């Protein structure tokens, strides 16, 4: 069983690399070749399906309550980020052919996550007693979904800012290749908004499930002093404010997208606590278990 998992894992990784190269190649090329477009999408779909199989096999091998180990979590992360991208592609492909530019960011990120999963942990992941729980499983899954859609939102916000900068300085700065490959402002802005709304929903669930689990264990009763939890709440506040000012004050476009980038910076800081050795030493957190559960 483990052998099959490893084979599927490597196939998923190769497929992810192929897809990344095809997306980047298409983005960099002057004219798109249809073959490359199909290769990119096909390999992305393949990678997604293989990753789901890997996750399924891990859940079979470890039992559903123990799938939150550092290897599997990164695989779930990689699968979700591709999943979010494919979902967007399937909805928006008819509206704009340029949404696929997102693949140039999403696919390499998925590959890096898989590589990190293998490099740092492999299949020898172990969970402490406190983490063997359905609550933790849900908590981690929601967290990964939230991070995956945040990453997509970041890519879109950056695309928006770049595109807007070009559009505002048309005469002084000659439009480059990227200008023609990026989606329109309307699409970037709208999709970024939706990704953040999606992310925010899951972030809320992450915090709720986390607190419930902490309340169950007496040794975690001081959870509200934990730096990672405080940062997660800060992230929740930033993304929440994004949604509020957008709805109430009509903040869209540049302001909203700058806000989205700021939100991601806070989110990344949250992610790193408990994941990077020296940060964990300065800011001890109950999330240090297993070296990075996200």
């Amino acid at each position, binding site marked *: 069983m483990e052998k099959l998992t490893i084979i599927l894992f490597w196939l998923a990784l190769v497929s992810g690399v192929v897809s990344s190269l095809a997306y980047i190649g298409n983005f960099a090329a*002057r*004219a798109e*070749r249809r073959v490359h477009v199909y290769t990119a999408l096909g390999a992305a779909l393949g990678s997604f399906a293989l990753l789901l199989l890997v996750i399924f096999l891990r859940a079979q091998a470890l039992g559903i309550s123990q799938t939150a180990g550092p290897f599997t979590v990164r695989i779930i992360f990689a699968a979700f980020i591709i999943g979010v991208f494919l979902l967007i592609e399937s909805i928006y492909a008819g*509206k*704009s052919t340029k949404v696929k530019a997102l693949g140039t960011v999403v696919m390499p990120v998925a590959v890096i996550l898989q590589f990190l999963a293998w490099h740092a942990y492999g299949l020898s992941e172990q969970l402490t007693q406190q983490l063997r729980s359905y609550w933790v499983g849900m908590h981690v899954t929601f967290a990964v979904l939230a991070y995956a859609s945040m990453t997509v939102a970041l890519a879109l916000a950056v695309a928006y800012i770049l*595109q807007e900068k070009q*559009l*505002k300085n*048309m*005469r002084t700065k*000659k*439009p480059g290749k990227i*200008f*023609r490959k990026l*989606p*329109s*402002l*309307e*699409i970037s802005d709208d999709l970024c908004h939706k990704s953040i709304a999606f992310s925010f929903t899951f972030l809320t669930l992450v915090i709720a499930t986390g607190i419930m689990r902490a309340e169950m264990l007496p040794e975690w009763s001081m959870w509200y002093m934990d730096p990672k939890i405080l940062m997660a709440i800060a992230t929740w506040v930033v993304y929440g404010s994004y949604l509020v000012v957008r709805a109430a004050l*009509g*903040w*869209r*476009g*540049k*302001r909203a997208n700058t806000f989205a980038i700021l939100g991601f910076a806070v989110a990344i800081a949250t992610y790193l606590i408990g994941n990077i050795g020296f940060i964990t030493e300065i800011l001890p957190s109950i999330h240090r278990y297993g070296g990075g559960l996200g």
Partner: protein
Amino acid sequence: MHIIVAGLSHKTAPVEVRETVTFPEQILSDALHMLTGYPSINEAVILSTCNRMEIYVVANDPDKGKDDVIRFISDYHSLERDKLEKYLYFREGKNAILHLFRVASSLDSMVIGEAQILGQVKTAYNAAFEAEATSTVMNRLFRHGFSAGKRVRTETEIGESAVSISYAAVELAKKVFESLSGRTVMLIGAGEMIELTATHLLSNGVSNVIVTNRTYERAESLARKYNGVAVRFNDFVDQMVHADIVISSTGAPHYVVTKDHVSFVMQKRKNKPIFFIDIAVPRDIDPSAAKIYNVFAYDIDDLDSVVQTNLEERKKAATIAEEIVEHEVLSFSSWLATLEVAPTIASLRRMAEEIRQKELEKHLRKLPNLSEAELNTVNALTSAIINKLLHQPIVKAKEYSTRKDGYLYIESLKVLFNIEDEEEDEEPEGASAFVSKPEASFKINR
């Protein structure tokens, strides 16, 4: 079988000449009948657009073919031959094929990458096909040309970006708004440019038009044209709140749309993006308004710089397109070469058979007492010898004819065996369809 093109275009002839030498659709069939009536011309297609007039023919003989085409044009349009020849260019063989493929790919157009020419070439071919002026070679040549043109359009970005001011405006608008359908456009002022841009926007899906003008009646008449609403000039700022795109072109000596106006509108719009195009000189829209959040404003120079950049891009795409076209020419040529070799082989066989018959006749006279069976054997023997002897040269000729220098082998075969192609009555020419002349054009000796 020689493919020849004779023509004149914006590159060789001024408009005064181009406008006299045209073949509009209604006379095309008649003209084609006349042209194919010339003895040297087997197939013909006439392409006549506002920028070029070209006649593609398949002729038995290159010089006679050219001469007949010139005679046809000068007769049809009652022009003096010498005057006409000054403006004409000729290509033959591979260069003629290359020329057609470049024309169909709009690499020879005034604006490289323009979209109409491929359609015009198709229309010209269809007219010739219906007039029964085309046959094997022209049918294949033109169909191959269409696919070359199509390949260039899909595999390069030659026609992708806008190269006129009004299209550049639409292109930029689409960078802001994903789709223009359902959007509202406001026209301030009047004029040719504003109408052209408005037409492009409407054909891209813009559905509502608001028109304003200092003279309300003019606004009304323009609004009627686009099925829109006319508003009084004093109210236009209030109405601008509903517009996603604003095009301004008034003769006012000062800014018509000030920064304060735009700030007010943006507040009312809750920061929904707005797109301004200012085609007036002096400008109508205060350029500082462009700095306002979610306002995208462009003047005529901005649009012009977009056009210039796009033109450069087209030039880059054109180099890739040239490679595609050359590749297609090669692929067509190899097909043509196999067509070339067929009559030569037929002639070779016929010649051998004639020799055999003659020799048999001569020698059988000396052998009057042969039985039926013996006669058959002699027949079979002589046939077997010529067939075996010709087998290798024929196989090799077929094989080599598709190569780049294939015509050399066919020519050698003709010279060595002193044969002519089946249909040709005259003496064999030293030239084949592929003797390509490096000069762009040359004078005909009369």
